[in-house]
């Protein structure tokens, strides 16, 4: 008995420890700190530096993610394949090139996914910054304006590709889960509103002199696109003129300077991840020997150039093995060690084209021709005769636009589509059908949100 007593007492501390371990506050035991790389959302919008980091993410999304990216995952590259600008040479199949993108297509699904994740990030940013009580209203303006611009950018491309689309301005996932489609026309109206807000919020001076953050004029350019899509030609004309009359922007007379960082024609370009990154366009299009490893400019595209066209001489490069010749886009020159090129998103030349289009649809074709002639003149071409009628002129605009904007932002597709001329692609594209004016909404999305049904016609 005595022994047991001693044992009991000797081990008293052990009992206490045991007691402590079993009964002490479990709440505290399982408290954890936030990981080093995460910040609570509340804190993000407490100061300008973290808010800027969140805004930075919106640009990274645009630059890197499949959809707006200029690399081979983006709409820019793939719409060139989809239309008649590029020929495809790799050993595998390319559904964009063969016009066989169906509802189960992986890259098409990524476009949709990443467009909406980009929109979510913009919505969350707008929500978070607007509600922040810690950042002065004046400081919020430019940031919010940029976020509105980016949101509109996504929606404007989305509705041109997919027609009626779900349009959301909230981050509420319950609402967004069962969201239905908004009609194409209504989406455009909403974008117009958003862009007007962006124009109001943004200054005309650039936040960064390299023009890597959109300013008011960039927002106006997007707004002018929107007016054209809505066929609001008067507003489009007015908006275009505001940009053209802004002497921040000038056409570069030397075509080799158009895609350089300091080009005066640039409205908005994308900063690269690091200083020496070459542009995604240079990676995607340039090759040095034959046969072309992936893509080369199509014969159809080459055929629309006059030999005297400076754009053919300076923006296109021939690669030959003595027998055969193939050509690649050479707007961006630096395949390695890039120091002077950024990926240009919007340049002022587009405004000239939009203005011409807005004028001709107001039956002011003669006036419109003047603006296209400015572009032609720079390329060393003769001016178009004033005698063209509207139809002839539209055909000329489309050709001129392709000569100017080949392999840029899917211009060919959007120009043809806006002017109702997509069917001319069926001459060179054996599989072209009417349904191809819209892309299919990814099948998986229709499955998990049946409110998005039915899919676009023909899919």
């Amino acid at each position, binding site marked *: 008995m005595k022994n*047991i*007593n001693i*044992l009991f007492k000797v081990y008293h501390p*052990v009992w206490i*420890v045991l007691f402590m371990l079993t009964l002490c506050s479990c*709440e505290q*035991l*399982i408290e954890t700190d*936030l*990981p*080093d*790389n*995460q*910040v609570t*959302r509340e804190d993000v919008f407490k100061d300008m530096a973290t808010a800027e*980091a*969140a805004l*930075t*993410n919106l*640009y*990274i999304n645009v630059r*890197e993610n499949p959809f707006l990216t200029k690399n081979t995952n983006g709409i820019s590259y793939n719409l060139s394949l989809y239309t008649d600008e590029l020929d495809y*040479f*790799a*050993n595998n*199949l390319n559904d964009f090139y*063969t*016009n*066989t993108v*169906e*509802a*189960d297509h992986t890259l098409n699904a990524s476009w949709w*996914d990443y467009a909406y*994740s980009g929109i*979510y990030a913009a919505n969350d940013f707008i929500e978070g910054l607007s509600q922040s009580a810690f950042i002065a209203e004046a400081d919020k303006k430019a940031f919010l304006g940029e976020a509105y611009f980016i949101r509109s950018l996504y929606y404007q491309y989305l509705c041109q590709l997919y027609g009626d689309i779900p349009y959301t301005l909230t981050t509420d*996932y319950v609402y*967004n*889960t069962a*969201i239905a489609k908004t009609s194409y026309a209504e989406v455009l109206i909403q974008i117009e509103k958003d862009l007007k807000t962006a124009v109001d919020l943004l200054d005309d001076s650039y936040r*960064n002199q390299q023009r*890597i953050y959109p300013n008011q004029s960039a927002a106006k350019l997007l707004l002018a696109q929107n007016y054209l899509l809505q066929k609001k030609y008067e507003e489009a004309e007015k908006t275009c003129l505001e940009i053209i009359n802004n002497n921040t922007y000038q056409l570069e007379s030397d075509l080799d300077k158009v895609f350089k960082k300091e080009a005066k024609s640039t409205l908005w370009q*994308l900063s690269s*991840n690091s200083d*020496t*990154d070459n542009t995604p366009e240079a990676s995607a299009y*340039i*090759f040095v*020997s034959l*046969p072309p*490893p992936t893509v080369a400019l199509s014969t159809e595209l080459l055929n629309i150039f006059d030999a005297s066209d400076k754009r053919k001489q300076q923006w296109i490069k021939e690669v030959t093995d003595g027998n055969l010749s193939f050509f690649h886009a050479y707007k961006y020159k630096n395949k390695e060690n890039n120091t002077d090129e950024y990926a240009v998103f919007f340049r002022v030349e587009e405004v000239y084209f939009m203005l011409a289009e807005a004028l001709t649809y107001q039956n002011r074709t003669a006036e419109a021709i003047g603006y296209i002639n400015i572009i032609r003149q720079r390329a060393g071409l003769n001016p178009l005769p004033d005698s063209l009628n509207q139809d002839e002129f539209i055909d000329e605009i489309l050709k001129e636009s392709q000569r100017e904007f080949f392999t840029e932002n899917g211009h060919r597709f959007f120009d043809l589509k806006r002017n109702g001329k997509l069917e001319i692609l069926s001459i060179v594209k054996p*599989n072209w059908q009417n349904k191809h004016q819209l892309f299919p909404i*990814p099948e998986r999305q*229709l*499955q*998990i*949100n*049946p409110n*998005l049904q039915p899919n676009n016609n*023909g*899919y």
Partner: protein
Amino acid sequence: MKTITQPKSKHRFYLLLLILLCSLHSPALFAQQQIRVTGTVKDTDAPLPGVTVWEKDTNNGTLTDENGKYSLQITPGSIVTFSFIGYKTQTHIISGTTLNITLQPDEAVLDEVVINAGYYSVKDRERTGSIARVTAKDIEFQPVVNPLQAIQGRMAGVNITQESGTPGGGFEIQIRGINSLQRTGNVPLYIIDGVPINNDYVTASLSKSILNTGISPLNSINPSDIESIEILKDADATAIYGSRGANGVILITTKKGKAGKTRFTVSSSTAFSKVNRFMKLMNTEQFNQMRDEAFANDGMTEYPPNAYDMNGAWDRNRYTDWQKELIGRTAMSNNLSLGISGGNEYTGFIVSLAHHQSTTVFPTDKGYKRNSASIGFNHRSKDNRFQLGTSTVYSVQSNDLPAVDLTNPALTLAPNAPELYNEDGTLNWQDGTFQNPLAQLNKTYGNETKTLVLNTNLSYNLLSDFYLKLNAGITNNYFDEQVLTPHTIVNPALGHTSERSQSQKSYRSFNSYLIEPQLEWNKKTGVHSFSVLMGSTYQVSNNNGYTLTGKNFSSNALITNISAAKERIINQMNSSEYKYAAVFARVNYSYNNKYIINLTGRRDGSSRFGNNNRFGNFGAIGAAWIFSEENVLKNSRWLSFGKLRASYGTTGSDNVGDYAYLDTYTAGGGYYNSVFGLYPTRLFNPDYHWEKTTKREVSAELNFFHDRIRTSTAYYNNRSSNQLIGLQLPSTTGFNSITANSPATVENSGWEFTLNATPLKTKDWMWEFSFNISFPKNKLIAFPDLEDSTYKNTYVIGKSINLVKLYHYEGIDPETGLYQFTDYNEDGKFTVDDKQIVKELDPKYYGGWQNTLSYKNFTFDFLFQFVKQDNYNLNANYNVPGIALQNAPEVMTNRWSPDNPDAPYGAAATTKNSEAINQMTPFRQSDRTVSDASFIRLKNASLSYVVNLPKAKIESLRLYIQGQNLLTFTHYLGMDPEFINLGYIPPLRTYALGMQLTF
């Protein structure tokens, strides 16, 4: 009572003294009228060293020496016991001074088999829960990297699928089916020697294209260091793991040192592995015919510029068997290990050092290496009150692999594609027309894993029936991966230089510690026995990691060193912390060894939940009735053992990743104008709570004819609800999912049968077999508002959750050669609503049949594994015949033409034929792509010869040959029916030779 006032230091003094007293004893104290008894202990053949000779109820005892001799001072008339593991203990009253003993082997194995149930162990016969067990004899000599590979087919209710035949890869393991709608939510809890190990790095990102979905955390352990693997299945067994037991628990116990002489074991084996079966692909003649037919069908008279195979860029008539070239090598693996073990009655140790290396079937000499050390030490005091056990498992693995699995190119490369190498040994690009698959070998994937699992167990017999225990452990995982992408992997026509070379490196470390103090009380009074365990767990895990990218190297020679890159990016740095605390208890009561009841419970807290949902309670009740102990049956001639048992309880899971309840932004993703990005981490949900799985089981265990036949039958029914899943969301929400409790209730039920028998047992001959079969059934039994949920088109109430919905394939239009499908809603197109065919991809039944035949020193052992299931077949992987420079299976030679309108495959076509291309969308999602993937496989066969050479001081010499995946019987249309995702190397066929020397 005065002792209370004693200063603390004195407590310690007493404690020390006590321990010293316990562990030492002085023979002088007992030196009264003593005699010395000597003798030899033998078994039927030879002297037995290391037998415990003990004077009953005293501290007086010894061990027999190498020759089985002992000598002990003793009081005449006292009682002495002779005990040795595996033999029946004998008790003698001492009268003379010489006593020679012959011990009899103990054949009543069942009574002695003790099962590890994690926090406690239990005799197999008294077990109330469902625990499957595989022991060292079935694992140690197998030519495998991962122990899971060795236990495939051996246990009822456990379905293991190898994800890739490349060494160092992963396994999918399902214990009684899948509970969670999220496939990754079905991972069991792995515990090595009492320490849960992290399995987070199974989802390492860089390895995806070579190792499939993951890397098994069990690669880090040398299979031959394992003493036993126990898999806990039902509520009774898993509820004590509470929150983490829903998907079952895999307990791995390493070998321990045993009393006896110091034993050296040297083992070595060499194995040769090849791809089991190549697919029958077209030869050049068949391929050319298909291509020509395609061009002809589309009216093309001239080959397009990129039809290099046909237009003269390549030699049209070349033939290469690409499977042989790219995945046809014999992978060699070597195992070498040294083990030293020994000890005495009080202290034992084991040290095992092992080296394993294996190459792959790819045309490269690189491969997988593992160096491992396992050290175990155990001790108990002479008075048996204090026990200490430690084990350390340390391993370093490295894997050097091509970054991409070459199976796909091997199956699709045109048979007339050009040579891989030029005459000067450089890669052949055939003037830029040939995407050389070997370029992928220049892109390399490498990883290094260092794993330390350290465990210490202390137990002290506090009072007569009380034991104070402490289980503590540390795990340390260091994992780094590297992907090198030199510019030489792309077509030289792109004009890249090393400025485009890229190197990516990711480091991750996972460290955790665990403390589990426990108190146990065991009491036996008459027919009542009680066993009570109370304990608590506290675990903290820290994960840290970062990823670096280096781009733009001045030379590819520098590519491994990111600091040599002109551009260096820190892609990501992250850290996370996981804390877990719990109290648990077990109460076991047994009446007369006949009626047993076992209660287990646990209250868990986890940092993975929001503040209001951190704690959860789990518990189970299990009961067993050993009816063969009833008087009526006790003397039955045929029934030697009979038990009925049942269990009911709940377990859970917190397997959702850390911090998912928080609304945060994460740093990462890149820079813009040198500003770092912050992106929204997730859609957050502060309200999700513990998932619960309710498990029920009834089982009968019957043994007949002196345990020569042993059977068990179990029926289980598990229902999971509130499962933590990434609830599927449309992309319009900005994400694909949100962590939430699933509304679904999933039922896994099924029958499991095992039969073990010893049909033949004579002096020289022995035949044993064991058979197991499981019939699992997975069923979605409830899903409120399924019709309005995002799973509307994914699940069907009453069907398995592992289902696919497919179009119905009708056949080929004899006019056009196009595939026809059923347009159920007659809207003229194929949409979700037309996917009316439902196929369940779960196994219908699976199991294994193992036989061991021995004659004298020879043992022949083989195991058949069988699975009855449906899965995707080769049709899911191929395109329109002839459409590209891609080979096709030989079966596609039987394709539609006006002369062959009833062919099983459609007409050849080119890219100009969009109808042909577009029909492939429904085709690949039709019931033509899912078919029978059942198989019976001779999983393992081995022949071994063991010889004892006592004169040469060799305890045993074992020589063996082993085969793995030797034969496969299947109707499967494709390469191999065992896979998770198509396009990876299937499990290999292996032959191994080995020897083991013990002295």
